[in-house]
């Protein structure tokens, strides 16, 4: 290994990046854009969902029930309509996520002590939202019913307070149940996948396409020197972007950061090695920039997005898919990020993720080294 040759390759690579506006914009603008996009644009919290009401009864009792819906932060009663068709129309048009129909005999049935049914029509195009809505709606109804029960008992001379159990919840790690705190740390994995795999996947393929590789490998520079020389600048850029993203997460979006920066840097460096090695390997085997960049995005960015627990919790995936996530290194890195940011776990408690990530880093570095030869065949 010659330092002179290594630095010559690295310096050339830096010049390529500086002179290529596309690379430069990916390096600088992409991380900030992704952070803002996911920080502001993606919100998994369901609040103030639009509700239409068709109150056929129009009694004191029905108004009480609606007030309970109104005071719940998850619902927002947009309009009270006077015919059923307006309600279905609102659902069709997407103006309402839920329609509540209170029957004409609502108060009458209640005073008779008989059971009464309130209809809730839910837009279930998004099943997740629908499930949450139904849950919230049932909660509101239950609260209303038990209120009526207590009133009834009182009225009939029963002074005993019925025993009740309630849950006292305390949320840990993400106290405000803020979904951005859950999402934003994971954006770092996306950013690094793009920098590491996407950008580096172009570097070797570009040299093959332009024919400069032939000139390069006719010199005494070794395969290892070419690889390290090319990857070094991207490693530095990747780590710089991690710092920028972490700063935006903490300083701008106020995501709690309870871990140590050293653990963050160490985990990020490991993941950087993983994606750089993957990008380099893809670039070597693909030999065309287009194919290389497509493959690189497919095997790093997509899994980092979908199979890493970044947006969709791994525990809720089908078991088979849960197993598949294990072969994508992004999963371990996203898990590390969430623990470092939100829980502040020390390195010793992160071994379940650090070990597989280290194993991937070593394995892929080996594969990348083996894949590249100074031959034209």
């Amino acid at each position: 290994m010659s330092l002179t040759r290594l630095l010559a390759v690295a310096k050339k690579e830096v010049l390529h990046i500086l002179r290529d506006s596309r690379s430069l914009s990916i390096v600088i603008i992409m991380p900030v854009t992704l952070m803002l996009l996911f920080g502001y644009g993606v919100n998994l919290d369901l609040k103030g969902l639009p509700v239409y009401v068709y109150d056929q009864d129009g009694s004191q009792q029905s108004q009480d029930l609606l007030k309970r819906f109104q005071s719940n932060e998850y619902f927002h009663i947009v309009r009270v309509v006077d015919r059923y068709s307006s309600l279905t129309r609102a659902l069709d048009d997407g103006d309402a996520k839920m329609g509540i129909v209170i029957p004409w005999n609502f108060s009458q049935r209640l005073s008779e002590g008989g059971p009464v049914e309130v209809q809730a029509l839910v837009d279930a195009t998004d099943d997740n939202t629908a499930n949450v809505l139904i849950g919230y709606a049932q909660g509101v109804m239950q609260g209303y019913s038990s209120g009526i029960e207590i009133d009834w008992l009182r009225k009939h001379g029963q002074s005993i307070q019925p025993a009740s159990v309630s849950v006292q919840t305390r949320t840990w790690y993400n106290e405000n149940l803020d979904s951005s705190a859950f999402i934003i740390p994971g954006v770092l994995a996306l950013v690094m996948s793009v920098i590491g795999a996407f950008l580096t996947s172009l570097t070797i393929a570009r040299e093959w396409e332009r024919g400069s590789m032939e000139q390069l490998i006719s010199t005494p520079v070794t395969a290892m020197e070419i690889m390290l020389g090319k990857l070094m600048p991207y490693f530095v850029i990747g780590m710089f972007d991690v710092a920028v993203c972490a700063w935006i997460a903490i300083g701008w979006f106020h995501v709690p950061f309870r871990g140590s920066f050293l653990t963050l840097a160490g985990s990020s460096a490991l993941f950087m090695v993983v994606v750089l090695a993957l990008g380099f390997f893809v670039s070597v085997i693909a030999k065309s920039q287009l194919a290389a960049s497509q493959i690189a995005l497919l095997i790093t960015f997509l899994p980092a997005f979908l199979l890493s627990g970044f947006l969709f919790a791994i525990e809720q995936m089908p078991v088979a898919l849960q197993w598949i996530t294990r072969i994508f290194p992004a999963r371990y890195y996203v898990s590390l990020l969430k623990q470092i940011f939100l829980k502040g776990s020390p390195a010793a408690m992160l071994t379940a993720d650090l070990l597989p990530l280290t194993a991937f880093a070593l394995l892929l570095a080996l594969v990348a080294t083996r894949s590249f030869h100074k031959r034209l065949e």
Partner: protein
Amino acid sequence: MRLRGERRAMVEQAISVSPNSVVIEDLTKRFGDFVAVDQINLRVRKGEVFGFLGPNGAGKSTTIRMLCGLLKPSAGRASVAGYDVSRDPEAVRQNIGYMSQKFSLYNDLTVMENLRLFAGLYSVPAKDLPGRMQWALNMANLKGQENLLTSTLPGGWKQRLALGCAVLHRPPIIFLDEPTSGVDPISRRQFWDLIHQMAQEGVTVFVTTHYMEEAEYCNRLALIFRGKIVALGTPTELKRDAMKGELLLVECQPLGGAVEALQSAPLVMDAAVFGNALHLVVADAPAAAPLVQTYLSERGIAVSRIEEIRPTLEDVFVSLTTSRNAAEARTT
């Protein structure tokens, strides 16, 4: 710079006693079923400008790439500067400069940055660096253009820069794969001046080309056709010995009809169009001339001029390749 007569003979004699820079023995390269280079044997001496002449696809680039350690030979062996190309490619690379067929420096780097890159890749010692850079800039006639982006340079300048990058470390042997393709004639001439300048300093130059006039600038030539060496010698030797017969120049109208008619004519071994005339290969030129004239006029072709000429390299090349083609047609 064309070496004439005596001077040329002296150079050739000096070279003939030099040690070998490149030794090729039964070198073969197969790609699947296709034999790109077929058991070639060659020796290139130190300080020689050795030309590798042949049409596209003849195996020129494949041979040069094997000699630079970029392709692994399928059979046979080759040594460059005393190092075996299969076993010790890195040692070979430290001792050679290579210019690939396609211009392959970095267009987004400046002249100076490209030079500095190759100085680094060849580990030119820091104390020699400024001197070497100046030397390369002078040689390539790029002084004052150091900070221009390579993409903005004209073709001929790019070639000179590529040569400068390839010889920064002063290698004893340089391999140039069609260095002047796509370059204007004046730049081409300047480039050959550079090649001879380096040869005079003792550098061995192994150069491929398909320009016949460039082949004349070489001390020795190998004609390669379909992976095989079909002739080897100095340009003078080739012109004298490699032709099987003598050459007649025929100016006539119409040319196309004449070529067709002469394919079946007796005495004529080969007929080819050169510019606005025909070159005929015959066994005995003075005897054949009147017969050819009669033969053509009988077929309504007016001959305005017919005379014996000395063959050029192009004649030699055409004659050798057509006789190969004919031989192959007979065997298959």
